[in-house]
């Protein structure tokens, strides 16, 4: 991981949408089969949720990994050893 997530080209689409990826699962709360996984900003920060679309029960709330690209940007020095000054 280096400097590749510091500068981005602006998107070409006029309007943007968050994609919800369907997940094969049954909601333990309401029994619905309509479950999806997608990035959110929850109360502490960026997260990836797997969530019932019928009742909003969370099947999981995950801290994003590098592959999730959420948020899209990332510090270039995140994995470097820390000095006294940070």
């Amino acid at each position, binding site marked *: 991981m280096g400097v590749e997530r510091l500068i981005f080209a*602006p998107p070409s689409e006029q*309007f943007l*949408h968050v994609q919800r990826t369907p997940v094969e699962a049954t909601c333990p709360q309401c029994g619905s089969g309509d479950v999806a996984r997608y990035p959110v900003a929850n109360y502490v920060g960026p997260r990836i949720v797997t969530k019932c679309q019928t*009742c909003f029960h969370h099947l999981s709330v995950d801290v994003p990994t590098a592959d999730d690209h959420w948020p899209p940007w990332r510090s270039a020095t995140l994995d470097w050893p820390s000095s006294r*000054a940070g």
Partner: protein
Amino acid sequence: MTIDIDIDDNQHLSNLDAKDIARRYGAELVELETLRYGLLEVARDMHESLVRSSFSPIVRDIQDCTAAIHMRTDAGWETVASREGAMQHAFTAQHMCNFLMEEWDEASLQPGDTIFVNDPWRGAIHQSDVNLFRPIIIDGRVEFVLHSTSHVLDLGGAVPGGFANGVQTHFEEQLKFPPTLLYAGDVPVRPAFNYILENTRVPSSLLGDLRALYGCLAVGDARLRELVDRFGLALVRAGGQYGTDRIEQSMRAAIAALPDGDYPVEDFIDEDGVTDEELRIAATVRVRGDSIEVDFSGTSRQPLGNVGTAWIEGTRCVQGIKMVLDPHSPVNSGTLRPIEALLPAGSAVCTLPPSSVSNHLDIGSRNINMMTTAMSMALPEHGVAPDSGNFAAMMIGGFDDRHGHEGPWAGAILPGGAWGGTYKSDGLTSVTPAIGACRSSVWEHIERESPIVPLMHEFLPDSAGAGFHRGGFGGIFTLLPLATTYATITGDRSKRGAPGVNGGGSGFPFYAWLVPGDDPSVVLDPFDLRGCEPLFGVFDGQGRPVADDGVFGRGARYQTAKVAGLELKPGYALRVLFGGGGGWGDPLERPVDRVLEDVQAGLYSPEFVERAYGVVLSSSDEVDVDATTRLRAELADARKDGKWTVPAACPTNWIV
């Protein structure tokens, strides 16, 4: 003493008695209440210290500043108490702390360390809002992080004062600081201070503000340690947990009372200050049970100009929801827990670096207005119309060449705005929009510190959106420079004013002129446009403002209300007219005595109330009841036939 907090218990707090609560939190209810308020008092003390010791008028007078206490929890870092001058900071502080603490090596932190951040891609609102964080280490572990925020007058960049209208990247805006050590163990880090102070136009003000931001954290450190020394860490933590759970329960109870459903809302930004492209801000507010999802899908791509934001809208939206659902409880982590946001990457609400994001005011105001509108759809009996949507914000500065005052100077002017009408009452007049809800400027201070004279700051007649409950009135602000002054004006809702709801009319839009300053009769009459140069607004062919069917920018110097580098010479005044809030409900139903009261108070003209309220006056203090009944019936019929709509608020007696 250790206390196990059983937070997995699904029982709502409101269903528990004092014994159950004591069992859950391991402490008596009276202790928990004492400590949740104890933490609030620490935050209040920090905030008061910040306001009293800051140098810049933005903090000292406008109170664009906030203090917060974050606590370590299983979820990360949660805000257990905050005290705000600018409302939005209370909703955005928690993410910033989490971004910082995920990135910073905790093992390297020492008591008295203070970290500086103003990076919008790490949760800051814009670079002008700077944040200092101070970890509180207890028994070798960081247990709390104290946080102070304020807007500062200048941090370098192409445009003095930071609202860098017209630029396209954050490189051209204020200096951007990823987490940077500013004090190492209470000792100022000289390279960090030098870098900041040598890259600002107002080092004296900025140094004062940085010391105030640091000093209030030192005050908070002492107060929080007093609390921990007296009650013990476990009990203070239990109080923080109880306080956030209690607020969460309050929010969830209010959300659960809403009908489940999807509530789609949208609003617009006139343009981005670079192109004339209108920006659509869209959201679907989904309510399920006691939680909400705000999906900003459908929002326009990030603009070229500075009117998008990087990250904050996902929690700033909560402010609009809370305003309607749970207006009285203090803001903490519990306020945010029931709500998640979907932010499309690359859209105006999640712009990618290196976009410019310095004007967050307009999009933030739209966000709040959209959320109150969605809540009004879910709870039609609790509707709230949108606010003026801009602060008429001005950053001013230059070189003061008056004898005895020589030197660079900078100031901020926030004349204010107005709120929309609500289901309960008319909208508030002369207040800043809800994202800030801070104060407007103190003119005596501005006059003393700056080579300008504020000539007028008063209500603007015929500016409030008509309604059963009308909007608040917008205002007039006129300033006369005594030395050459450069102004940045940041505003929107200049193409059309704040919309009404439930049949209400829209407010007056946002306008500005350069006015010859040598004739008091002209400069003090906001309706006298003779010799005035229009800067922006919607005009007819004669240069008269017309809110409903004029042309934006016709005959004006700018095709935008986002202006930078406007040169003001002594002898010419700058006049802005800012709009009122939208109206709530049908103006044809507003009791005639209330319409008459507004006319008698000089707030509405007889001409406007006839056009918008169908109220005909026979004299200055009498309503012609028969003519009014007839006219109201005619207008209602015409509306049914699609031949009449409530006119936008707009004065009519212009002199051109």
